Structures are given as C-alpha cells and as structure tokens.
C-alpha cells in the first residue's frame, strides 16, 4: 500500500473511491489476475506472431476487399494453426470476467469482513458498484494497452500509415470486448450474491459459460431437427424465414453476439450477419463498408450485450440491497 499511497495523496476522498482503490489493489496483487493476464498476453503474442508471418500474403491478396487494412488484418489473419485473437478472446473473456467476480460478495461475507464493511457509513450500492467498476477498469486498461501495443508494434515493423477508420474499428473491438467481459462479470457477481460458497458460484458461472459455448448450439440443432419441417419441401422464402429464426435463437448466446459483432468490426467487407437473398446481393460490389455502416450492422448485437449486462447488474442490486447482512 505504501507505494500506492503517495499517488492518491488527497485529503478525504469519497467512500466509493476508497473502495475502488482497495479493490483494484487487491485484484492486481491476486494470483488469479496475474495468471489470466499472462494467459491473455501469451495468446495475444502467439496470434500476433502467426498473423505477422502471414501478413504479406494477406495484404497482397487483391481478391480480398479488406486487404488494404493492414492493422485489421494483423488482428484477424491466421494460417489456421491457431485461431485469430478475437476468437481466442471470445473464450478467454468470460473466464476473465468470471474469475474477477465469482467471489466478490460471498468471500467477504464468509471471512466476516462484509458485516464490518456494512457497519461503516457507506451506501450499500457503492459496494457493488466498486466491485464491478474496479474489475472493469483493470480489464479496460489491459485490453486497451494490448491494442495500442499491437498498433505501435505494427507501425514500427511495417511503417504503413494507419487509416482513421482502422483505428476506430480497433477501438470498437476493444469496447466490445470490454462489454463482453462486463456481462460475464456482472453475471458472476449475481452468482456470488446468490451462493454463499465461492466454489458453487464459480462452478455455476463456468457451467453457464460452457452451456452457451458448447451445448447451446448442440441442443438447438437437435431441437431444430425434431421440430422444424424438412427443408426439401419448403419454398426458398420459407427456408430463409426459418434460417433467420435459427440465427435469432443462436443469438441468445452472448458469445454468438460477441462473435458477430467483432467479426463485423474487424472485417469491413461483412455486410450482413444473416442470409441474404439474391435480390439483395444483386449489384453489390464486394467492397469494405464505412465504419458507421458497420456499426449500424452490429448495433443490435451491441445493445443486446449491454442489455444483458444491465439486466444482470440490476438483478444483483435487487438481491443485495434489501438483504440481511450477517456472517
């Protein structure tokens, strides 16, 4: 604490800031955060290494409308030996969120510190908010510095000028990733309020994560096969309608939302996330979309992620605010 003290040499600060500071210091010192940072940095380095090895062929490929965007290519190019960074992140971000939040409230309750904390003149919601915000600040700093390192390294290595829209897209990707972590963080905080044992809340959070990443699609496929009519006997219009229904159902899973959104952000030529009819395709020139158009395409996904995060956070308020605090 000594080394941090001089940084915040203010006179009395608000209880919320005090709690934020303590929570962040706790996270930075905790082994699990260090382990996760190492994991994320390693995957980042690995995927950068692979994409740098293949960047020449990727940017030289004139058939790809996105080949002019060197920095986006850095994030997405791969030779199929390992997945690109944003796919990695769709697995690791939930883990990061869960590990930062699964014992937020119950660990304090079990060690008897929550009662003491609540006996101080602070508002209850400040405790929740500090837990949520401190973890999110750390994650944002981590992602932002990784992205900036990548941009800086790319500039040094290639010397290619960066398009403003590339920068915006990368920032958008970072923002999406932060929201994605925020969703899992708030979900795990809800579970940490609900369950007294930290292990139970961690396992149920991981269970939810596994369900959405692995089983949800399997279950959905089974259900579709048994409930939907045989596509052979349907008109193209009906097939299109069913396809959209299936996609909508898939998008209940937050990782699907994240994948859709990041793909559109990082690949400017993606125009639609659903099936397109021949009419819509006719006359379209395969060229990158401007940034604002890409944002328009992913806006439903983004609002879905934000909505899920806010819903979880509101639930944690509901559970915590009127709860009896005793150890």
């Amino acid at each position, binding site marked *: 604490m000594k080394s941090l003290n001089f940084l915040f040499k203010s006179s009395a600060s608000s*209880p919320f800031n005090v709690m934020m500071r303590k929570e962040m210091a706790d996270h930075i010192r905790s082994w699990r955060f260090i382990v996760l940072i190492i994991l994320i940095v390693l995957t980042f380095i690995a995927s950068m290494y692979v994409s740098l090895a293949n960047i020449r062929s990727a940017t030289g490929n004139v058939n790809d409308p996105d080949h002019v965007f060197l920095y986006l290519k850095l994030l997405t190019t791969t030779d199929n030996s390992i997945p690109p960074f944003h796919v990695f992140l769709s697995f690791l971000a939930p883990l990061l969120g869960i590990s930062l939040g699964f014992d937020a409230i119950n660990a304090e309750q079990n060690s*008897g510190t929550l009662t003491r904390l609540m006996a101080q*003149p602070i508002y209850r919601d400040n405790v929740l908010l500090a837990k949520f915000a401190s973890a999110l600040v750390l994650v944002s700093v981590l992602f932002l510095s990784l992205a900036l390192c990548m941009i800086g390294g790319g500039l040094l290595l290639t010397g290619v000028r960066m398009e403003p829209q590339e920068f915006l897209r990368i920032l958008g990707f970072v923002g999406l990733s932060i929201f994605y972590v925020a969703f899992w963080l708030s979900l795990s905080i809800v579970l940490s309020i609900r369950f007294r044992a930290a292990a139970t809340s961690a396992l149920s959070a991981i269970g939810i994560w596994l369900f959405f990443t692995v089983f949800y699609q399997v279950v959905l496929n089974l259900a579709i096969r048994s409930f939907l009519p045989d596509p052979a006997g349907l008109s193209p219009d009906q097939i299109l309608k069913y396809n959209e229904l299936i996609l909508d159902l898939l998008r209940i899973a937050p990782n699907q939302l994240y994948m859709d959104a990041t793909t559109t952000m990082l690949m400017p030529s993606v125009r639609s996330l659903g099936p397109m009819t021949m009419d819509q395709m006719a006359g379209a020139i395969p060229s990158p979309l401007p940034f604002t158009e890409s944002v328009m395409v992913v806006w439903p996904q983004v609002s879905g992620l934000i909505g899920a995060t806010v819903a979880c956070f509101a639930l944690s308020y509901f559970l915590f605010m009127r709860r009896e605090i005793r150890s």
Partner: protein
Amino acid sequence: MKDPIIQIKDLSKCYGSFRAVDELNLDVHKGEIFGLLGPNGAGKTTTILMMLGLTEPSGGSVHVCGYQSTGNPVAVKRKVGYMPDSLGFYDQMTALDNLMYIARLNGLGENEGMIRALRMIETVGLTADKDKKTGTYSRGMKQRLGLAEVLIKEPEVIILDEPTLGIDPSGVRDFLSLIKSLSREQGITVLLSSHHLHHVQQICDRVGIFVKGKLLAQGNIDTLSKALFGHEGYVTSVKVAQELPQPWPKDAELMQWKGLERISIHGKEVEFTCSEDLTAALVRFFVKEGYDVLSVHQKEYGLDEIYQKYFEAQ
C-alpha cells in the same frame, strides 16, 4: 431525564412464522454500559442488526442518536461503532492497512487517519504487531483490533456483539476493563450482548434479559435480584467440620429466634433463610455450641441465579 440515545419501540422481526424479536421496548441512556443478556438464538444479533439498519424490522422503530435506523442508516452508522461476533479482517493486509481502510471509509484524510490509527493501535496495545498481516493474528488480537477499528471513527455509541467469545479468561478481563475505562473516560455509550453472565456482571451498569425475542427484565443487577429474590430475604450458609445429625436437636431452639424463617441441612452445611441479617449471631451460636466453623457464606445473587430463575419460569 435526557432523551435516551438508543430508543427501541415495539420492535419486531419475523422470519416466516418464526418471531425472532417480539415487540421489544428498550431505552439506553447516554454514557451507560448496557448488557444484553440471553442464550444463543434469543434474537440479540437480530436486534443489533436492526439498530444499524443492516436488516429491516417487520414492525416498530429504532432511533439511535436521534436518527431512525431504517430510514437513515448512513447517519446512524457515522455515530455508531459496531463490532460483529465473527470478526474478520482482510488477511492479506497488515493491521495498520486494515485500520486505515476503515478510517478512509469514514471520510478521514490520510494524515489524520494515520494519526488516529496509530493512537488507537496504541490504546488497544497492538503497537508491536501493527505491521503484521492480520491473517497471522490470534483471536484475542483480532478482537482488540476490532475495538480499535470501532473507536477510530470516534463513535458516540459502540455496539459489541459477543465481544468475549473465544478469548481466554485473562484476555476477557483485560478486554472488559479496556471497554469500561474507555466508556468512563470518553462518555461513550456501550451496548454489549453476551450469553456469558460473569462478563456482563463485571462491567455493565444495567442489564436486559432477553429470551426468545422478548425482554424479560431490565435494570441493574441489584434491582433485578431484589425483584426476584426479595421475598426470600437473606440467606446464610454455615459449614462445619462435624457431621450434623438428622434431625438436628438445635433446630427447635433456633426456630425460636426472631426473623429466622427456615433451616435446611445438607450434611455438614446448614442454610438459614432469614428476614433480617442474622449472620453474626448465627456464627456466635455455632461457636458457643462447640462446632468448628469452616466457612460462612452470605449468599448474593449473581446473574447465574437470576438467569436460572428466569429459565425455571419459562
């Protein structure tokens, strides 16, 4: 008389059909040490949580320092220091850091907080261990650190929930005398809950006996014992070296004495129940009759007996 600093009116708390606290009325005045005495599960902790606004009452109201606990818990918590029964600290932080965290949460600046934290650590006698991690602290040390933490906000009222739980007898004595001296010097009102009668008896000005969510009696220990045992008057027991025959031949002679009401003999011990104090006369009588008196004991009623009495009544 001044307004009481803690004012509880018709307070109730139900968990489903179970009434943990039942229509409780209690006033605690400024500067006094009040002991809330009751067995486990009597609703002591629930009452304390309601005083601090940490749980909502099902009915009734609590006013502490003039603020209503349910509606304005933050104002109450500014004035009240609370030490819970199962005390925990952030184990990875040192004692001083733990205290500083609480000081900051109470809106103290860095310098002022540090000065107060060091002073409190000195008051509770932990100066030598202030830079140790609290994970290595013993139960007694944690208890003292808990007291330091309660005092750092300079409270008007301190509420201690089972403060003597799990510390050794000499630790208990030190801890209780520390609380008593602090209360006397700084005029702090203390409310402490315990199921340990002797500890409460040592320091409390007034005691409330709390069983099954109800306050059965309150007052100082003298009044309580008078109210309960008043009809029995004075009880003196005399122990002698000789075996006393049954029936005792002196019995009839003694029963002539004015004020002596009952004599009961258990082996070598005789118990006299009198309406006035006959102890000295009884000893003289025994000596004159040639008995070797080993001990004379005039019975005073402690909380043990009071407690027992109430449980018999239940």
